[in-house]
């Protein structure tokens, strides 16, 4: 018995009352911490399940990159924190839990109820409660244990996380990110992408993000293929030679090793108009836009909407980009990225695309070896022959 709790010593009642409240608060802090962990597991499971659902059902939303994962984790943290705050136990509730767990016969609850009572009996009640509380361990009252609910949530969370991190969508099984290849039509590949969050480029998570800054550029070049074909377009980064040439069979306009793009199924299945870039030109909603294959919200209409010539030449910092036509970073897109599912007039988009095509064709900065390819491509677009 401490001097502060000796009733006969005439110690102020507030002393024992404060001590009881402080001790119970310590127990409550542990209870809140455990509750937060439990809620975090629940919230993470919920977020992961939702994300996995989007990942599987909606090809335009990909959660594989670290930024998205961080956002999801933050969401789970906020949810868990909010839920814990709302459901945090009161002191009396904590006291009841202590009494129940340690069989204190309502000592703590009574002491808390009499915290403001100045009677001698209340002092005795607080003293007795304090004596018991000082011998108790917080872990005895609120042990860290995995109950059935948390365990089930953890299992569900693991499955959902696996579904996110491992591409379970059939059309993406052989996507370029898996083969460490970048799409020639991707905004990030062509240097259009800023070094910000890229919700549409799963290649970032695979560590193969091709271009992320102004010192990179999409350079149409001669194919490294020993059997050169005129209708082959290759891209590479300025600082990386890892991006190999991607061949496109004549007439198909698709890299032969990307079956998902050839099928064009992702845009078709989602019903979404897919942004695409080619040679630095952002092509959105064009009949052949889906041919670009790579989902890139950031690149959506990046180079499309406002420039009179239909093409946007990047500023000095991106002036090194070969091809001369750039979609520009997202910051230059006045319209901003399109939301998933948002529709746009197909005719208007096609008109813009044609204007861009004309602008590209009239310019003389396309290598001769690529002119035919580009021409055929845009003619195909103009004729509406793109795969939708």
């Amino acid at each position, binding site marked *: 018995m401490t001097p502060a709790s000796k*009733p*006969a010593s005439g110690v102020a009642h507030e002393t024992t009352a404060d001590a009881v409240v402080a001790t119970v608060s310590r127990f409550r802090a542990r209870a809140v911490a455990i509750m937060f962990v439990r809620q975090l597991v629940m919230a993470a499971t919920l977020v992961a399940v939702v994300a996995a659902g989007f990942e599987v059902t909606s090809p335009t939303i990909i959660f594989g990159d670290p930024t998205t994962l961080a956002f999801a984790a933050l969401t789970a943290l906020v949810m868990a924190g909010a839920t814990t705050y709302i459901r945090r136990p009161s002191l*009396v509730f904590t006291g*009841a839990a202590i*009494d129940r767990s340690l069989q204190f*016969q*309502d*000592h703590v*609850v*009574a002491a808390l*109820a*009499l915290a403001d*009572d100045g*009677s*001698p*009996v*209340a*002092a*005795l*009640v607080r*003293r*007795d409660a304090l004596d018991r509380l000082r011998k108790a361990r917080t872990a005895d009252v609120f042990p860290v244990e995995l109950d059935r609910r948390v365990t089930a949530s953890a299992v569900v969370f693991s499955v959902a996380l696996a579904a996110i991190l491992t591409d379970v969508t059939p059309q993406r099984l052989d996507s370029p990110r898996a083969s460490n290849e970048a799409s020639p039509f991707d905004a990030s590949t062509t240097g259009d992408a800023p070094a910000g969050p890229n919700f549409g480029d799963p290649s970032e998570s695979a560590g193969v993000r091709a271009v992320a800054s102004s010192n990179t550029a999409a350079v149409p070049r001669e194919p490294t293929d020993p059997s050169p074909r005129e209708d082959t377009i290759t891209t590479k980064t300025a600082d990386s030679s890892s991006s190999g040439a991607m061949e496109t069979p004549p007439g198909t306009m698709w890299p032969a090793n990307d079956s998902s793009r050839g099928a064009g199924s992702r845009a078709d299945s989602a019903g979404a108009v897919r942004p695409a870039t080619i040679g630095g030109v952002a092509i959105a909603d064009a009949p052949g836009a889906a041919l670009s294959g790579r989902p890139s919200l950031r690149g959506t209409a990046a180079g499309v909407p406002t420039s009179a010539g239909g093409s946007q030449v990047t500023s000095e910092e991106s002036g090194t980009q070969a091809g001369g036509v750039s979609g520009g970073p997202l910051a230059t897109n006045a319209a901003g990225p399109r939301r998933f599912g948002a529709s746009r007039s197909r005719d208007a988009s096609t008109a813009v695309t044609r204007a861009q095509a004309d602008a590209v064709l009239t310019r003389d900065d396309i290598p001769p070896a690529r002119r035919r390819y580009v021409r055929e491509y845009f003619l195909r677009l103009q004729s509406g022959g793109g795969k939708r």
Partner: protein
Amino acid sequence: VIDDRGSSGTTSSPAAIEAQAAVFRECFSHLQMEIGKVFVGHRALVDQLLLCFFCQGHGLIEGSPGLGKTLLVRTLSDALNLRFARIQCTPDLMPADVTGTNLLVESPSGQREFAFQRGPIFANVVLADELNRATPRTQSAFLEAMQERHVTVFGVTHPLEEPFSVFATQNPIEMEGTYPLPEAQLDRFFFKLRIAMPSVEDLAEILDRTTSVARVRATPRYGAVTVREMFDLIKQVRVAEPALRLVLRLVRATHPDVEGAPKIVKTYVKYGASPRAAQSMILAAKALALLAGRYHVAADDVRPVVLPALSHRIIRNFHGEMEQVTNESIIERVLDAVGGG
């Protein structure tokens, strides 16, 4: 008339309270031992009787003849050195026989005047033997004394000395020629205590004690002042929230018209327990808490006193009477329903 109780009232020092609590435990233990010398067996019954007495309640003792009801109450009075009175209730017993009356007496100066002659109710421990044999009019005389702790004769109120407890007995077998106690009077009894037949060992001990030469008597100790102080101490004990909620739920669950009452209550109970039942349970639980060394009532203190506090306060309906559903079985279901079992 002012009653000088001689009570110290509430104690202001924690140390004094602790000392009084120690005295209470010692006194209770002393009474258990002294009563045990005379009254064989029935330890739980003795404890309930002592709880009832220290809480200044009245007890209704029910049992077959010859089980020691009168002996039990008398021994309690002897052990505490209190004034004891026994009233054998019969149909011709008049209220004045209980409360007392004004008699014309002659003063030393030769003048004749009315003087109040106190009845047997003016005692610390009153045994009303076979109370259900008294007429309702006489029973009502007990009613006022038990509840108000005073009697009124010819318009003059006479307070009763404290401690004051009435222990009434009734024989559940011979119901012919009796006047069953009305619900209002039953409600005034703190506890209903039931004396069962003693076990074989206890019966052998009873025979040995009562048929031999040696006569054992309880050693008187303490007194009325101590009992009053103990009652004041008991009232200072606090009630924790869980215990209070348990009592409230228990009382409400005995009412058939309350939502959430057990099915057995809705089917067989006509009237449930009154607020006096809750008062009885809380007071008795406070005494139990003190005996356990606590200064607050826990839910564990309530459970042992539920049955004696509720068993005479639940009035069964026609179906309950016909199907011979006992109040004890109803209370057990109620305890299970409210989580107090």
